[in-house]
């Protein structure tokens, strides 16, 4: 469960911060090009943050009390594999969810 005090601090700051990011150059018309190292780092923000966000939870899910769950692990691997092969987010979600439900229904 989300702590409501945390939520009511996160909501406005995240909203304003995200808007500031979007407004940054479009709004102020900063025409100076970004330094090369910064453009380079920005290119990799999403692939750097998202895997770290899920990896521990995939191996040690909170729902099973931190014990590695074959169904969840298999679902994660199938999602990744289908996403890599098809380059389609929707196909990967469907394959991963399908694997999870099939395994939970038969094994789990």
């Amino acid at each position, binding site marked *: 469960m989300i702590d409501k005090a945390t939520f009511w601090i996160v909501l406005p700051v995240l909203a304003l911060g995200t*808007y500031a990011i979007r407004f*940054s150059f479009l709004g102020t018309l900063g025409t100076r090009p*970004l330094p090369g190292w910064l453009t380079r*780092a920005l290119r990799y*923000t999403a692939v750097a943050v998202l*895997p770290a966000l*899920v*990896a521990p939870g995939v191996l040690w899910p909170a*729902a099973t009390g931190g014990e590695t769950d074959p169904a969840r692990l298999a679902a994660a691997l199938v*999602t990744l594999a289908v996403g890599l092969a098809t380059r389609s987010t929707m196909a990967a979600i469907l394959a991963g969810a399908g694997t999870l439900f099939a395994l939970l229904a038969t094994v789990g």
Partner: protein
Amino acid sequence: MTSARHAFLRGLLAALPMTVVVGPFALLFGVVATEAGLNVIEAMLFSVSVFAGASQFAALQTMQENAPVLVVLATALAVNLRMVMYSVTLAPHFGELPLRSRALMAYFLVDQSFATTVAEIDRNPAMTAQEKRAVFFGAVVAVAPLWFLASLAGALIGRAIPPEYALDFALPITFLAMVAPMLRSLPHLAAAGVSILLSLVLAGLPYGTGLLIAAAGAMTVGALIDRWLEVRRA
């Protein structure tokens, strides 16, 4: 029909295929948000004020793990940093428009409106700033109302879904499904690999700080390999 109206329709049509992803994604956000304990109004405030899917999911996940506010914000904002590039890329095309136009565009600057506008400018470099703006808002009309309505639908049905559906795993699957198609080059692969490895090794660190270190390390490795490849090509 005016040329701006033509451009608006071109943007709308070009962005339509993206609704296949946006709709279910927003629905899922509504469901996961209510499962995490937010009520419908809170979930909707979240979707409307932040309006950035991946970071909304990231914030939900870290808040559910009871990470401190600073870690939640750092994680969610890091996910949105890619939009600095969007803002930089679009700025020269819209410089002559009034500030209120650009301020409104900033709110609606998402992956889909950005991708559509850039692709359309590429095809039609001679467009005026007004026509480019029309393309942008055409794409916005295709995805934004759907994002809000599907979030609302998800939040309304969220409570009705029983726990045996293993919704705890909806977030990991969604994130992995978003990341996999991005792994199209060596630096991307290396960054993702380092991200996974470090987050597992550092999983014991308190307050989700392992996540931030892993992300920073992964970003650095991606950027370094990117630079190394560029130097080698030159």
